[in-house]
């Protein structure tokens, strides 16, 4: 949808967890594979509920998966 300041480590964390596929993560979090791809690419900011589900699926805390970057000087 649009680029945003919400960065995430999903791709890196997937590979650290035995090269978990996007489809596997999508199934665990209850979303489509396209949504995982969009989140990884920074094109979609997930809802708070989905962010918690993704963190849970990756067995991490939410702040370890998502980081907000304030670009203001």
């Amino acid at each position, binding site marked *: *949808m649009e680029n945003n300041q919400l960065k995430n480590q999903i791709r890196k964390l997937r590979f650290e967890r035995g090269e978990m596929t996007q489809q596997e993560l*999508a*199934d665990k979090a209850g*979303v*489509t594979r*396209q*949504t995982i791809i*969009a989140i990884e690419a920074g094109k979609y900011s997930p809802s708070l509920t989905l962010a918690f589900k993704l963190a849970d699926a990756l067995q991490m805390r939410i702040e370890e998966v998502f980081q907000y970057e304030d670009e203001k000087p």
Partner: protein
Amino acid sequence: MNRVQKIAWSIVITTLLGLALSLITFARLYPKYGGTPKTFAAFSFMGIVGLSMFSPIIFREDKGTVKFDERDKLIQRNAAWAGFAMSNLFFALACFIPFYILGANTLIRVNWLPSIYVGATLIYFITWAVAILVQYGWGDKSGE
């Protein structure tokens, strides 16, 4: 590309095809019949868009256990609003433009009324399809 993108593409393609045939036919009929209803009948080629109604049958359900999520809901809601806004704009223009061009004391043929309704419906679906493709992406990779 997901199922909704394929349906949106079928609407865009049939619309472009219908529009091209309509304009070609209109250009051929205009010198012969002028601005009469016979000439405007060329736009009946827009009925080709109706073929896209079969696309939900042709395109099968997406793979994967989850077929619809919060992002799909957001995209489809935005697309529906865009379609509604554009069809409403079309309706407003179809009402006000003749009024300002022809004046308040002119009579227009009632067969314009169903044409406006059909036009607004077409505008809704075309805008919906374009909004879907803009948000998901136009192709296989951009949407993924």
